[in-house]
C-alpha cells in the first residue's frame, strides 16, 4: 500500500519534470521565431552592401560590421524627414487627445447635469463603429477642406478615442466624493480641483493612455497614406513603403534594413522602459492594435 503510493508519487513527479521540459522547449521555440526577424534585421543592417549581395547562402553573423547603411538611410532617402514628421504627428495628436478626453472624463465622472448619462451611453455605443466605415467620408471631408498634405488633416480625425474617455472616466469615478465636497467648501473651483487633485491621483492611468496612444500614432498607416501623397508629409510607415518601392533601388536591402531598425527602435525602447504599464494597459481593453 505504502509502496504503491510512493511509486505513483514518483511517476507523477517524472511526469511533471517531463511536462516542464516540454514547456520550456515550446516556449523557447516560439521565442526564437519572435526574435529571429529582429536579429536578422539588425544583422542585415550592418552588413556591407557588396558582401550581402555576394552571399548566396546568407551568413548568420558578420565579422566586418559597418554603419554605412545607416549613413545612407539618412542621406540617400529622406528618412530623417519621415522620422521628424512622425514625432510631430505623435506629440501633437497625443497632446490634443489629452486636452479633449480629460475634460470629458471629468464631466462624466464628477459633474452632474441633465442628459449626462444618456450622452455617456451614446458615447459607449460609438465604440462599436468600425473605422473602415467612417474613413471614407473623413477622406472626402479632409479633401474638400483642402487639408490634404497638412498636419491638420493628418491629426484632426485621429484625436478622439471613446475608449480612452471611458477608461479615464472609470478611474476618475474611483476618487471619493468627499474629497470633492471638501474642496468645494474650501472654495476650490472645478478646474483647479481637476488639476490639483484628480489628475495627480489618476496619473498612472493617464500615463498608460498616453503610451498606448503614442504606439498607435507611431504605427498608423492607413489614414496617413490616404491624406498624404507629398513625401514631405510622410510618416514612417508610408516612408518605409516609399523607400521600398522607390528608395535605394530594390537590391540595397542592407540600407533598407537600417531604415527599418531606425523606425522600430523608438517603440522597442519605449516598450522595454514601460513594459508593465503597456502590457497592463493593453490587457485592460486594448484591441489587436
Amino acid at each position, binding site marked *: 500500500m505504502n509502496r504503491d503510493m510512493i511509486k505513483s508519487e514518483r511517476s507523477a513527479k517524472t511526469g511533471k519534470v517531463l511536462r516542464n521540459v*516540454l*514547456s*520550456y522547449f*515550446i*516556449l523557447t521555440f*516560439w*521565442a526564437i521565431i*519572435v*526574435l529571429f*526577424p*529582429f536579429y*536578422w534585421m539588425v544583422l542585415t543592417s550592418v552588413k556591407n552592401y557588396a558582401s550581402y549581395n555576394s*552571399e548566396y547562402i546568407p551568413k548568420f553573423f558578420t565579422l566586418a560590421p559597418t554603419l554605412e547603411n545607416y549613413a545612407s538611410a539618412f542621406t540617400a532617402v529622406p528618412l530623417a524627414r519621415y522620422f521628424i514628421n512622425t514625432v510631430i504627428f505623435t506629440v501633437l495628436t497625443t497632446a490634443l487627445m489629452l*486636452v*479633449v478626453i480629460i*475634460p*470629458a472624463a471629468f*464631466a*462624466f465622472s464628477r*459633474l452632474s447635469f441633465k442628459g449626462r448619462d444618456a450622452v455617456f451611453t451614446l*458615447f459607449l455605443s*460609438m465604440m462599436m*463603429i*468600425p473605422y*473602415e*466605415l*467612417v*474613413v*471614407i467620408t*473623413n*477622406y*472626402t471631408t479632409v479633401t474638400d477642406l483642402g487639408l490634404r498634405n497638412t498636419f491638420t488633416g493628418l491629426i*484632426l480625425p485621429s*484625436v478622439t478615442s*471613446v475608449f480612452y*474617455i471611458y477608461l479615464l472616466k472609470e478611474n476618475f469615478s474611483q476618487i471619493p466624493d468627499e474629497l470633492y465636497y471638501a474642496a468645494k467648501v474650501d472654495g476650490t473651483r472645478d478646474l483647479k480641483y481637476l488639476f490639483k487633485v484628480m489628475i495627480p491621483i489618476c496619473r498612472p492611468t493617464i500615463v498608460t493612455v498616453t503610451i498606448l496612444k503614442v*504606439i498607435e500614432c*507611431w504605427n498608423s*498607416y*492607413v489614414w496617413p497614406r*490616404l491624406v498624404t501623397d507629398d513625401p514631405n508629409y510622410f510618416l*514612417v*510607415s508610408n516612408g*518605409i*513603403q516609399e523607400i*521600398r*518601392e522607390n528608395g535605394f533601388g530594390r537590391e540595397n*536591402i542592407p540600407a*533598407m*534594413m537600417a531604415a*527599418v531598425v531606425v*523606425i*522600430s527602435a523608438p517603440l522597442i525602447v519605449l516598450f*522595454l522602459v514601460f513594459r508593465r504599464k503597456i*502590457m497592463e494597459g*493593453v*490587457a485592460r481593453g*486594448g*484591441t*489587436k492594435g
Partner: protein
Amino acid sequence: MEGKSAKGWLYLLPAILFLGVFLVYPLIDVFIYSFEEGYNSASQTFFGTGIYNYSYILHDPYFLQAVKNTFILVIATVPLSTLIALGISYCLSSIKPLRELYQTVFFLPYVTNTLAVGLVFMILFQKNAYTDGLVNLVLGLFGISPIDFIDGPYWAKMFVLCFYTIWVVLPFKILILTSALASVNEEYYNAAKIDGTRPFRIFRKITLPMISPMLFYLIITGFIGAFKAYSDAVALFGTNLNAAEMNTIVGYVYDMLYGDSGGYPSYASAAAIVLFAIVLTITCINLLISKKHVHYVG
C-alpha cells in the same frame, strides 16, 4: 442649476465636436454614398440613387478576389492563432523561472511597426537573383526545392500572409490568455489533485470552462480583426495588392478611394458596408454559439 448644466456641456464640447464630425456624421454619410450612383468627387454630383454600386462591386473580379483572400485568411489564422496562443499561455502558466522574460519577448511584435517588420519577413521568404532566401535554405535541408513566397504561386503567398498575420496577432492573445489562466482559482486545481485527476482532464474539465469567456472574447475579436486585414499584406507584397492577387476587402475599399485606381467613394462605401455586414453576421453567429458553450461564473 442652469449654470452647472452649461458647464458640464462645456467640458464635453470638444469631445462631442470631434466625435460628431469624424465619427457620427461619416457613419451616416457612408450609407448615403453607397446608394448614390455615378458620384463624381470633383463636381460632387450624382445621377441617381439605387443599388448599382453594390451590384458593380459584386461583379468586380478584384472584389471577389479580395473576398476570397480575406475568407481564406480568416479561416486559416483565427483558429490556428487562438490554439497556438492557448498552448503557449498554458506552457507559460506551468513554469516559474524565466516566465517574465518569455512574456516580454512574446509581447514584442505588438509594439513593432507592421510595415517595417513586414519587410524583414519579405527578405526572409523572398527568392531573387542573388539568393534563394533563408527560408528556402532551411526548406532545402528537408529536400524541398526553392519556392518564391513573395512573387511566386498563390498558395505560397497566402502561406506567408497567414504566417505573418499569426506572428502579429499572437502577442495580444497570449497576453489575454495568460492573465485568464492566472485568474483561475487555485482551489479548483488543489481539489482535482487530491482526487488524483490527470493533467489533461484537469485542463479540459476545469481550466477550459473557467477561461472560456476570455477565449470566446478572443475568438470574436479575432474574427473582427482578421476580416479587416490589410497592412500586413501591404508590408509583404507592396501597395499594388491587386497585381499580387493578395488584396483584402479593406484593401479594396482603400484602393477605390485613393491611388491609381481611386476616386470612387461610392464603390468604396458599398464595399465597406458589405464588409460590415459580413462581420456583423459572423459576430452574431459567434455570440449565439458562445451562449451555448461559455461558462460564466455568476
